[in-house]
C-alpha cells in the first residue's frame, strides 16, 4: 500500500506492507533514531514519535494508521525548534550517556514543552513516564527539562555551572560536553544496527525447551528446504572448540566449558541450533521446522540442589587442567558422553560435585576472636538473580572484507572478542577486526562474548554479512545475569562495638557455565571485608553449577551482594549491642593510614599484600550524610506508631509515619576498586595532525560512560587544546592499541592513564621539535593555551610544528604513546544514606530520600561522574525493591519481559536524590582520579534493608524487598513463598 503522511514537516509517500508497524517502516527508510528496546511490548518507549501532537510508541501503531497524519521524529537534519532546544538541553545537562534512549527522551521533552512551557517536576516525570533508561537514573532529565523551559524564554540561557575541581587545570575537574553527545542526541548512525546493509543475512537461534538434556539428534532437513534459508548449524555440524565467553585477561580464571553448540543443553534457552536466512521471518519460520530429539535429564535448580549428595551433574565430562594439577580429592574422569571442561589453572573446582570454583583465606585467629567477643551473631543474606537489561540488547554485525572477518560489535572488550572469535572460527587474530560501535548500555553483560562467536563463524564460512540481535526475551534468559548468592556472615564484637572476628561464607550460583564463576563471588568478599578493620577475618567461597540462566558480570560485579551481607550484619550487630548503627561503622571502618591486612589473602588472582591506605574520605562523607539526614537530631528518636525493637536498641527510631506508613533511615559505607592491578593494562596513542589538532587512538571501551570524553580531556589538557581539537577513536582492534576493556572499574584509571601517558609522551616530542625549530633548550619551552608553544626565543603553534613533521625534511610524524599498568590498588569509597516509608499493612516500600557521598578521586568531568552514580544507584534501587528473575520448577524463566521484570522508571526516583563528590586524590590515578561508576551499586540494598528495620523493627535478609517479602517478615502473611522461587 502507499502511505502518505508528513514527516518532520515534509510530505512523504512511501510504499509499505499493511501489517508493518510504524517503527519498522521508519527504520527501513533510514530513520534510525527510532529504537527498539522491548520488541513491541510498548513498555520501553524508545521508538517514540510525536503523531498529530501526541507522544506515542511507534511499535504499537500500524504504518497504515499514519495515513494523512503528521509525524515528528528525530533526524540529524530535523529543524523543529522545540526539539532542538530539548536536544541541546539534554546535552548541556549532561544526561546523554549511552544515547540509545536520547532521541526518545528528546521527543518526550519536546512534547512536554509544547504542552507546558514551564513544567513542574511532576509534569516532567509524567512526560517521561513511558521512557525507560538504564544509564542515567533519570535525575538529570529534570535538570534538562527545566533548562529547556528557560531557553524557551531566553534562548541564550546557560545552565548554572556545577561544582568545579582542580583550579589549576582548564578541563580537568570542569564540566565539558560529552564528545559523542551531539551525534547521539541528533540520531546519527552510531550503533551496530545502524551499520547493517540490506543484503545482510539474519541469524536466529533455537533455544532448548529443557533445562538439562542431551541432544540426541537434530533433523534440519525441512528447515534447509525452506525459502530463504542459507544454513542451519547445530552440535553435529559445528566446530568442536571449547572456550569461555568471559571477556577476561588470558589465561582466564573462568573454566572453558562452552561450545558453539554443545551435546548437552544446560538451561532453558541454551543454544540447540541456529538458522541463517535472508529475512528474520524466514529464519524464525525455519527454526520451527527443526526437529530435535532430547534425552531429558533432571535439572539442578538451586544451590541447595547442586550441593546435595548424588545431585545430577551439570557438567559430567572430563576435566582438563592446562597448568597445575586438579585439587586433591576431586574427580576429572568424564562419563564419556558429556563434553570436557578445561581449566587454565586450578581454581578450587570439582565439577563432578557441581562445584565450578572455590577459594578461601583469612587473617588472624577467627575462633579466638569469637571467643573474645561479648556478642556473636550469624546471619544468612540472599541476593537473587537480576538482569543487566541494557536497552540495546546483545547485537553484532559480522562480515568478510578483504579476506578478513570484521565484527561491528556492541562490546566492552574488543580485544577479548577478537581473541575468542579467532579461536572459534579457527583463524589467526590478524584476520579478525573488531570495531566497537557506540554501546547502548553494557553494564557487564557485554563483557561476555554472547553473540559474536556464532555470527563470526557463520559470516566467515558463508562469506555473507550476518546480523544477529537478541530479542528482549532472549536478553532476559540467554544473556548474562548477576549471580544469585547466599552469604552467611558471622560477626563478633566487644560490648563497645569493636569487632573481634568475621567469618564470611559465600555460596554463588553461576548457572550452567562458569564465566566469572570465581571472580564474581570473590569480589563479594574483596570489596566488603576490607572496609572493616578486624584482626581476625576468614572467608570461603563456593561457586556452584546449576541449570538456571547464565550468570556473569554485572556492574558492581560481586560487590553489591557482599556489601549487603557485611553492612546489614554489622547493623544487626549494632542493634544487638544497643549501639547506633553509624557509631558501629565509625568504630570499625578503615581510615587514612589504615593497614588493610585482609588484602594479603585477596590478591585478585595473584599473591596478595597488605596495603597501607593513603587518604580516605569516609569520615567527611559520613559527616555530610549525618548532617543531611539529621542523624543525631530530633529526626531520629521519636517513637514509632507500632513498637520497634530498635526503640530499645539505641537512637535509631524516627518520628512516626502517618497511619500505616512508618519512616526509617539507614546508612552504609561502600568501596570498590579501580581496575585490576597487576593483571590488566591499557594503551593509547596520540597523533599530532598537520593542522595542530589531535587524533587520539584509545583502546578503551566507552559504553556511554564518557570514557572517550575523559581521554579527550586528558589530551586537551596536556596539549593546551580544546576538546573540539581532539578526535577520539576507541575500541577498534585495527586502529587502536590494546586495552583490557571496560570492566572492573578500570576505564578512567587504566585507559585514562594510558591517554595521559600518551599525551605526556607527545608533549615531550613536541617540545623537542620546538626546541630544534626555535634553537633553544626544551626545558625553556612550554605549551600554553590554544596550542601555543612558547619558548624564550619565540613562539610557535602546534600546527607549525606538525607541518614540519610531515614534510620531506621534517622530524617524522609526532606520535605519543602511552602504556599503563600498575600494582597500586586505588579504592574509591562512599557513604550512602537512605530514608524509606514502609507500609506495614501492604508491605510496600517507598524510597523517599537517597544521598550518595562519593570519593572518586579527582572527578575528571563532575557532571558526567554524577550521572554515572545516579544511574548506578537507580539500578541498585531496582535490584533492591523490584527486580528478580523468576523460574518455575522446570527452570523456565517466568518473567522474560519488561511487562513482568520491572525496572525503575522516572517515577521510582526518590524525590530527594543527591550525589555529592568528595574528592580524595589518588597518587597514581590520572590527575588524581579513581573509579566512579560501579561503586554506586553497592549501597542501596543494605541501606534500604537497614532503613526498613529502622521503620518496622524487622530484618529482611533477602532482596528484592518486595511487598510479599515484607509482609512475610512482618508476620502478616504466612508461609515462605512458593518453593523459594516466587517473591
Amino acid at each position, binding site marked *: 500500500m502507499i502511505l502518505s503522511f508528513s514527516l518532520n514537516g515534509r510530505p512523504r509517500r512511501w510504499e509499505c506492507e499493511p501489517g508493518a508497524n510504524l517503527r519498522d517502516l521508519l527504520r527501513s527508510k533510514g530513520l534510525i533514531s527510532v529504537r527498539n528496546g522491548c520488541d513491541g511490548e510498548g*513498555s520501553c518507549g524508545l521508538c517514540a514519535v510525536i503523531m498529530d501532537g501526541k507522544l506515542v510508541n511507534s511499535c504499537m501503531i*500500524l504504518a497504515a494508521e499514519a495515513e494523512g497524519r503528521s509525524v515528528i521524529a528525530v533526524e540529524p537534519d530535523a529543524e523543529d525548534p522545540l526539539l532542538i532546544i530539548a536536544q541541546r538541553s539534554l546535552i548541556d545537562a549532561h544526561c546523554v550517556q549511552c544515547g540509545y534512549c536520547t532521541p526518545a527522551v528528546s521527543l518526550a521533552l519536546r512534547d512536554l514543552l509544547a504542552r507546558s512551557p514551564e513544567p513542574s517536576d511532576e509534569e516532567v516525570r509524567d512526560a517521561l513516564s*513511558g521512557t525507560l533508561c538504564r544509564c542515567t537514573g533519570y535525575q538529570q532529565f529534570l535538570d534538562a527539562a527545566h533548562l529547556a523551559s528557560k531557553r524557551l524564554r531566553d534562548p541564550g540561557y546557560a545552565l548554572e555551572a556545577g561544582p568545579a575541581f582542580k583550579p589549576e587545570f582548564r578541563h580537568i575537574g570542569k564540566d565539558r560536553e560529552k564528545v559523542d553527545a551531539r551525534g547521539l542526541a541528533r540520531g546519527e548512525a552510531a550503533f551496530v544496527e545502524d551499520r547493517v546493509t540490506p543484503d545482510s543475512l539474519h541469524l536466529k537461534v533455537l533455544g532448548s525447551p529443557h533445562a538439562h538434556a542431551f541432544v540426541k539428534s537434530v533433523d534440519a532437513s525441512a528447515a534447509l528446504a525452506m525459502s530463504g534459508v542459507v544454513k542451519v548449524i547445530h552440535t553435529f555440524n559445528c566446530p568442536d572448540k571449547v572456550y569461555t565467553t568471559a571477556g577476561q585477561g588470558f589465561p582466564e580464571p573462568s573454566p572453558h566449558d562452552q561450545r558453539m553448540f554443545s551435546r548437552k543443553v544446560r538451561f532453558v534457552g541454551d543454544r540447540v541450533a541456529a538458522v541463517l536466512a535472508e529475512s528474520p521471518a524466514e529464519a524464525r519460520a525455519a527454526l520451527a521446522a527443526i526437529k530435535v530429539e532430547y534425552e531429558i535429564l533432571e535439572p539442578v535448580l538451586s544451590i541447595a540442589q547442586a550441593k546435595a549428595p548424588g545431585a545430577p551433574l551439570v557438567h559430567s565430562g572430563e576435566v582438563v587442567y592446562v597448568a597445575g594439577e586438579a585439587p586433591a580429592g576431586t574427580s576429572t574422569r568424564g562419563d564419556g558422553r558429556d563434553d570436557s571442561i578445561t581449566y587454565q589453572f586450578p581454581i578450587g573446582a570439582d565439577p563432578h560435585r557441581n562445584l565450578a570454583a572455590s577459594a578461601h583465606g583469612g587473617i588472624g585467629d577467627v575462633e579466638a576472636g569469637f571467643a573474645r567477643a561479648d556478642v556473636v551473631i550469624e546471619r544468612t543474606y540472599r541476593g537473587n538473580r537480576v538482569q543487566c537489561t541494557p536497552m540495546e540488547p546483545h547485537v553484532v554485525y559480522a562480515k568478510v572484507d578483504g579476506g578478513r572477518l570484521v565484527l561491528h560489535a556492541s562490546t566492552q572488550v574488543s580485544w577479548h572478542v577478537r581473541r575468542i572469535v579467532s579461536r572459534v572460527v579457527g583463524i589467526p587474530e590478524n584476520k579478525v577486526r573488531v570495531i566497537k560501535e557506540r554501546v547502548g548500555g553494557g553494564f557487564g553483560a557485554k563483557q561476555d562474548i554472547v553473540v559474536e562467536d556464532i555470527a563470526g563463524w557463520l559470516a566467515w564460512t558463508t562469506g555473507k554479512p550476518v546480523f544477529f540481535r537478541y530479542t528482549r526475551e532472549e536478553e532476559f534468559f540467554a544473556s548474562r545475569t548477576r549471580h544469585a548468592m547466599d552469604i552467611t556472615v558471622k560477626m563478633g564484637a566487644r560490648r563497645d562495638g569493636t569487632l573481634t572476628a568475621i567469618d564470611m561464607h559465600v555460596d554463588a550460583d553461576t548457572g550452567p557455565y562458569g564465566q566469572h564463576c570465581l571472580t564474581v563471588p570473590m569480589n563479594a568478599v574483596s570489596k566488603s571485608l576490607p572496609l572493616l578493620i578486624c584482626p581476625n577475618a576468614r572467608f570461603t567461597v563456593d561457586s556452584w553449577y546449576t541449570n538456571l540462566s547464565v550468570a556473569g558480570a554485572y556492574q558492581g560485579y560481586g560487590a553489591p551482594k557482599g556489601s549487603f551481607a557485611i553492612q546489614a550484619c554489622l547493623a544487626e550487630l549494632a542493634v544487638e549491642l544497643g549501639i547506633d548503627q553509624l557509631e558501629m561503622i565509625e568504630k570499625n571502618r578503615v581510615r587514612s593510614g589504615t593497614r588493610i591486612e585482609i588484602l594479603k589473602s585477596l590478591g585478585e588472582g595473584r599473591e596478595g599484600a597488605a596495603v597501607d591506605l593513603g587518604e580516605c574520605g569516609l569520615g567527611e562523607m559520613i559527616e555530610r550524610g549525618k548532617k543531611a539526614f539529621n542523624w543525631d537530631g530530633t529526626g531520629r528518636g521519636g517513637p514509632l506508631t507500632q513498637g520497634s525493637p530498635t526503640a530499645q536498641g539505641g537512637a535509631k527510631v524516627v518520628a512516626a509515619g502517618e497511619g500505616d506508613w512508618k519512616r526509617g533511615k539507614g546508612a552504609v559505607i561502600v568501596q570498590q576498586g579501580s581496575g585490576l592491578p597487576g593483571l590488566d593494562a591499557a594503551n593509547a596513542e596520540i597523533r599530532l595532525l598537520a593542522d595542530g589538532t589531535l587524533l587520539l587512538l584509545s583502546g578503551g571501551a566507552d559504553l556511554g560512560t564518557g570514557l572517550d570524553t575523559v581521554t579527550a580531556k586528558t589530551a586537551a589538557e596536556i596539549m593546551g587544546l580544546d576538546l573540539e581539537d581532539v578526535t577520539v577513536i576507541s575500541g577498534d582492534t585495527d586502529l587502536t592499541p590494546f586495552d583490557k576493556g571496560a570492566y572492573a572499574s578500570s576505564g578512567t584509571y587504566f585507559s585514562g592513564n594510558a591517554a595521559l601517558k600518551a599525551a605526556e609522551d607527545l608533549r615531550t616530542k613536541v617540545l623537542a621539535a620546538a626546541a630544534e625549530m626555535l634553537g633553544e633548550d626544551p626545558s625553556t619551552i612550554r605549551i600554553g593555551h590554544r596550542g601555543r608553544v612558547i619558548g624564550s626565543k619565540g613562539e610557535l603553534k602546534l600546527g607549525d610544528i606538525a607541518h614540519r613533521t610531515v614534510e620531506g625534511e621534517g622530524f617524522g610524524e609526532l606520535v605519543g604513546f602511552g602504556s599503563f599498568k600498575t600494582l597500586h590498588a586505588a579504592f574509591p569509597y562512599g557513604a550512602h544514606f537512605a530514608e524509606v516509608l514502609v507500609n506495614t499493612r501492604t508491605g510496600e516500600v517507598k524510597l523517599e530520600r537517597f544521598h550518595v557521598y562519593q570519593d572518586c578521586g579527582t572527578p575528571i568531568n563532575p557532571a558526567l561522574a554524577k550521572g554515572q552514580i545516579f544511574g548506578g544507584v537507580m539500578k541498585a534501587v531496582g535490584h533492591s525493591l523490584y527486580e528478580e528473575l523468576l523460574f518455575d520448577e522446570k527452570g523456565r524463566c517466568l518473567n522474560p519481559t519488561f511487562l513482568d521484570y520491572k525496572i525503575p522508571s522516572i517515577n*521510582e526516583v526518590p524525590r530527594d536524590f543527591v550525589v555529592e563528590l568528595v574528592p580524595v586524590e589518588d597518587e597514581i590515578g590520572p590527575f588524581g582520579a579513581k573509579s566512579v561508576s560501579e561503586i554506586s551499586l553497592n549501597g542501596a540494598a543494605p541501606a534500604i534493608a537497614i532503613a526498613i528495620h529502622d521503620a518496622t523493627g524487622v530484618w529482611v535478609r533477602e532482596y528484592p524487598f518486595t511487598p510479599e517479602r515484607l509482609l512475610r517478615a512482618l508476620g502478616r*502473611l504466612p508461609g515462605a513463598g512458593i518453593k523459594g522461587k516466587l517473591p
Partner: protein
Amino acid sequence: MTVAFHKPRDAAEALALLSGVDEAPGADDADRAKGADGKGAGGIKSARRLPLAGGTQLNSSESRNLAVEAVALDGLVPKSVERQGSATIIGAMTTFQELIDSPMVPPILAAAARGMVDRNIRNRATVGGNLGADKSCSSLIPVLLALDVDLLLLDGRRVRLEDWLELPSEPKGRGIISKISMGGREGWLSGYARWSRVSADLSVLGAAAAYRLERNTVRDLRLVLGGVAAHARRFPALEAAFEGLPLPDRSAIEALVVGHDGSGASYFSTIDDARGSAAFKSFRMAVLIADAILFAKPDEAGSLPTEEGA
C-alpha cells in the same frame, strides 16, 4: 501479526467486515500483506478480523502470534466527552489521556485512567479498546462495571456493560462500542483501588466498589475485582456478604474477604505466578477491597483519597 488493514468508510462497512461478510462494500479495498505466492501472508484466510482502536493491544507483541485483519475504527467511533442531562457520555475512541484531561469525567474514572502511568500508552489506549480487550488487568472495567454503565453500540443497540461482557467475545457477538453512558446515580458511593509493582505497570490487582449507605448499612454493593480471575468481574457472593451489614471497619472487611483460612477461596481463587503468590494476592486483594469500600465517595465527588492507584 497484522496481515491486512481495512479502513472502512462508515459504520455499516465496519460492521460488515467484522461480521465476516467479505462481499461487503469496500472489502476488496483491504490492503493485505503479500506472501511469496502473491496471496496473503500468514494464512490470511484463517486470520481473525478485529477492531482496531488505539492499537495498544492489537499491535503489541502479545498479539504477534495471532494473524489479524485489522478493521480501523478511527473516524467511525466518537472521541469525545460530553454531558447529556445527568449522564456523562464518553466516546469509545476517547483515549486514557483525554479522560484525564476532561473536566467532565467523574474523578473515579479519571483516577482509573491515571493508573495507566505510562503517558505514551495513555495517548493511544482507548476506553473502547480497554473494554474490548476484556483483560483481568483492565484499568477501566472494574470502575465502569461497578458504576453499572451502559454501552451504546455502533449497530444502535444499548446494553449494560455487565450484560455486554457476558456476550460471546467475538466482535460478531459484542458488536462495536460507540459510546459509554454513565448515569448520574444519586446516593451512590464509589471507590477504586489498585496495586501495581512499580508506577508504570499494569493493574496487577484492582478493586472497584459502588454501593448505597442507608443509616450506615451497606446496600446493593457492586464489587468488581481484577487480577483474581480470567477477567475483571463482579463477585456476587462477596457482594452478598456485605448486604445489610453496618459499614464494617477495615479489619472486618479484610477478615471477611480472606475468610477463616486466609485464602479468600470462599469468593475468588488466585494463582501463583511471577506477579506474586496466590496467598499474597488474596491478602492484598482484601486490602484493596477494604480501601475501595471505605474510601468510596459520591460519584461526582473530588479525587480519591486512597493511597492506592491514583
